[in-house]
């Protein structure tokens, strides 16, 4: 069920849509934050070059997934 009909006869995002949107937004925020903080922490532990790119990518995916999950839950409990 992609849309439910709102009071104005207009489409309004359904609960699942909002959870999805929350996950996507959290994932984007988490990727950005992971890129920032991951770069620092990977540089600090002495990664360079190719290894650094891999490490930062891993941190980005991890924090994106974590943030996304939490944000989706945050959306889910509010609708």
């Amino acid at each position, binding site marked *: 069920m992609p849309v439910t009909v*709102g009071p*104005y006869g*207009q*489409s*309004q*995002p359904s609960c699942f849509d*909002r959870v999805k*949107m*929350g996950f996507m*937004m*959290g994932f*984007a*925020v988490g990727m*950005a*934050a992971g890129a*920032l*903080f991951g770069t620092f922490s990977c540089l600090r532990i002495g990664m360079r070059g190719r290894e650094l790119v891999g490490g930062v990518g891993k941190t980005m995916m991890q*924090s994106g997934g*974590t*943030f996304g*999950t*939490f*944000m989706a*839950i*945050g*959306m889910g*409990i*509010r609708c």
Partner: protein
Amino acid sequence: TGAAAPSPCVHPGLDPWRIVDDCGGAFTMGAIGGGIFQAIKGFRNSPVGVNHRLRGSLTAIKTRAPQLGGSFAVWGGLFSMIDCSMVRMRGKEDPWNSITSGALTGAILAARNGPVAMVGSAAMGGILLALIEGAGILLTRFASTQFANGPQFSDDPSQLPPAPSPSPFGDYRQYQ
């Protein structure tokens, strides 16, 4: 939060309830999310055998999820308190409120670890909230260009960003 959202803080009667609401929302979010992640972790860290693994995951959930929920609640409650006070004091509601309150919350909660930790934690809180606010603004802009003539969407983005913004704060600081 989003500039479009009418501020609940401005109406005196509603003031404290938003803080309580955020606190509870953050606790729920932390407890559920922590439950999911701890279930996986406990399952993987247990000795072989489905029985052991299930029991391990249950133990991990019971010990860690409420704890995580508690720290989310502290973060969310303090954040919301500072945010509301700032709305009241500055008389307006813009992304800077959230960013400043995120930074202040991070600093206050790290106060017992010394000034250096406070600065680091404040920077982290501020950056995270800036990212969230930026994502909210982008989302609002995207939604309004995409559905330019929907009367609906003028209030829709406004109800979406506010929900994420008070609660999200909960999520991040934990990972430090």
